[in-house]
């Protein structure tokens, strides 16, 4: 009897799995069909608004009712995508006119599960709803989502805030992410900041004024953003580099910044780092070896040549790269090739050979 129960249990599992498969197939098909039919409804409605050159309250009510459902929002998104190809200007105007619908939807989407909630800021960002206007309900909703445990909610909301373009909201969002304790990759943050559509000077000023209040990880993301955006921060970055309270990681980032954007007062400091032969500080030396490429002069050349003799692979590797970037040739570095240090000559020869190879490839491609 017990064995029979077992067999029946197995059969029941088999049957339920078959049912599961069939149900899945039908649910997907039905959902796709429903989205397609909603798309047709939206298209008719939106085209009518475009023809009438006005959005009436009835249409807004229709949207408020429909867009509460995430499948309808997907269909709406697809419809706008298609219509934008034929009526780009009208769609921009239409979206501006229906911004109140998105204000209404904020609360609805906050109540949904994380996957559905994350879709809402995506729509806000994609259609630039509230861009330049800073509609407080939308901004506040984004600030709530920025503290969510779902990475996608956080990132979509941060990107939406960037498009909205209010500097103080962005800084607030960064604080929320920082304090939430959830891991948020620095590339995601710096990329979202690079999308900022508002006043960049105001954003930079605010970020600097709050800089010390952020965690080290967030500070690194902000410095990355500065490095990718502009060289206007050289003075402040240099101050940060020379401050006693600055951590090693932040200093590395500052050196990278000053390697991308030339700043004369930083040069003696960079030379000091480059001349530091203490193995414990090899990271400083290696990063500086790279950054010195932004400071072309005879002294840089000599320091970099000296770094080619370092016992650290990365220092030698970066120094050779900088010498190559600075345009030195085999003749300029003859003493390295004629010297006793095989490691130095090998890495330098490789760099110059590689450069020659790239040049010949470029010539071939041009031809």
């Amino acid at each position: 009897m017990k064995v029979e129960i077992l067999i029946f249990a197995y059969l029941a599992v088999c049957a339920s799995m078959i049912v599961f498969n069939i149900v899945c197939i039908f649910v997907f098909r039905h959902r796709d069909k429903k989205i397609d039919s909603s798309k047709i409804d939206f298209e008719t409605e939106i085209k009518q608004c475009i023809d009438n050159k006005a959005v009436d309250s009835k249409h807004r009510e229709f949207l408020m009712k429909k867009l509460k459902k995430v499948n309808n929002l997907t269909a709406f998104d697809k419809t706008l995508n298609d219509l934008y190809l034929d009526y780009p200007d009208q769609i921009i105007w239409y979206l501006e006119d229906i911004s109140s619908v998105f204000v209404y939807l904020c609360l609805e989407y906050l109540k949904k599960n994380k996957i559905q909630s994350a879709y809402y800021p995506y729509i806000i960002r994609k259609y630039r709803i509230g861009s330049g206007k800073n509609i407080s309900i939308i901004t506040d909703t984004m600030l709530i989502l920025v503290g969510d445990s779902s990475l996608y909610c956080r990132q979509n909301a941060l990107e939406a805030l960037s498009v909205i373009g209010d500097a103080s909201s962005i800084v607030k969002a960064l604080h929320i992410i920082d304090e939430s304790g959830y891991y948020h990759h620095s590339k995601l943050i710096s990329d979202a900041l690079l999308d900022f559509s508002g006043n960049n000077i105001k954003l930079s000023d605010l970020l600097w004024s709050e800089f010390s209040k952020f965690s080290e990880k967030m500070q690194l993301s902000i410095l990355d953003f500065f490095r990718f955006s502009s060289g206007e921060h050289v003075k402040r970055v240099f101050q940060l580099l020379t401050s006693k309270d600055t951590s090693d990681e932040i200093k590395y980032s500052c050196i990278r910044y000053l390697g991308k954007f030339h700043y004369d007062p930083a040069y003696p400091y960079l030379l000091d780092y480059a001349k530091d032969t203490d193995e414990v500080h090899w990271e400083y030396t290696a990063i500086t070896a790279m950054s010195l490429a932004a400071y072309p002069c005879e002294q840089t050349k000599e320091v970099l040549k000296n770094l080619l003799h370092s016992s650290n692979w990365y220092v030698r590797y970066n120094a050779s790269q900088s010498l190559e970037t600075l345009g030195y040739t085999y003749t300029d570095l003859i003493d390295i090739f004629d010297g006793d240090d095989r490691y130095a000559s090998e890495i330098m020869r490789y760099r110059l050979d590689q450069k020659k190879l790239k040049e010949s490839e470029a010539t071939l491609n041009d031809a």
Partner: protein
Amino acid sequence: MMLNDQVFEVIKVVLDVINIFFIVYLIGYSTFLFIAVVTGSSELYKKKQQDKLKNTLMRDYYIPVSIIVPAYNEEVTVVETVKSLLALDYNLYEIIIVDDGSKDTTSKKLIEAFNMKPIRRPIQRKIKCQPEEFIYETSVHNVPLTLIRKKNGGKADSLNMGINACRYPYFICMDADSVLQHDSLNKIVHPLLENENVVAVGGVVRPCNGAELERGRVKKYRMPKNILACMQVLEYDRSFLASRILFDKFNGSLIISGAFGLFKKDTVIAAGGYDSTTLGEDMELVVKLHEYCVLNEIPYCIKYATDAICWSQAPERLRDLCKQRRRWHLGLFQSMWKHKEMLFNPKFGAVGLISFFYFLIYELLSPFIEIFGVISMIVAFIVDLINVPFMILFFLIYAVFGSVLSLTAFFARTQTIDLKITAGDVAKAILLCFFEISVLRFILAFVRATAFIGYRKRKMNWGKIERKKINIE
């Protein structure tokens, strides 16, 4: 007569014990498979929903990646493989092909196809490996391409050379006869953006027999014409969907396929790189990473990217399949034996208590247990202690159960990655999954059980199987 009765009694008791063992064993396996397939399917459907609702990182986030392709006698496929890698939708990567002293024209084919030039490149030896014989470089569409020809030392040794030579902080290992899907790099780096402790990410390997690929995109997909390859499609889907997703839930993955996996270079170097003395260097590395991180109290995570797809050739001849499975089984044994102290060791948490135990009972020992089961059935039949109709019924239910789970995995996979399949493919899958469970599984159990015969001889062998050109346009 009395002695006979006593012997009969003893046999009866022994068979009863065996009976109970097998019932527990099968219930354990079926329950695991059921939980794994349900977890895997729901995870895939969730992923599909996430993609639909844009719960994904939509831009190119440039995490620089080095792709290492170890090659040995791969003149037939290597050029096409590199061409497909050059067509990947990713912005910052390099390709390093390590020719492990091939006896054919692998290097020559590459040099000619990509107009590569010789260069004297110093390589920092962080992990021990055989010396290089020559290095060629070029760049195609701004993707640096390096060929390192080295003295023969095996696949693991070639991968170690690749790790030494690569410049980026993460590397991908793959086979020279595989093709990465156009978006696979983008997908496989996602876990790195989601979790700072990720040290390795496994991708999905799908047999490309029957698929038509164009610049890393599936142009047409059919179940393979070859029956053996067809059954492997079902087997791969079951194994990748089921156990890997479930183990991923508790950071318990013990295998990242050598055909497609991403690793954090520094951690791999610190753990000692690939072990060139084992046949299953891919599994050994993952087990080693668990051990290294736990013992050094490094927070770590080994993830599985369900949407990062690599298309690989499944052997179409039984001889090749047996060769491959023997190699895998020996690799499994070597990896588990080398790290045996992890079994039931509470220090390793779920990895030691669940994953290691599962691999021991249901992977390493399963061929022996299955063959032992068949022998006991024969003995029971001889001494007339078996209810034959019940046995057949039980076996049929087991086969139907396994087949249904295989089909669930297959359909979940095809539906969630939007592969269009025909009614003929569905019929093929339904027919063959039963055959795979009831016939192929037992053939492979025998092959795996006898894998240790001639083990010493095969130690450093690349275990080559017949290569065909992949259907790439």
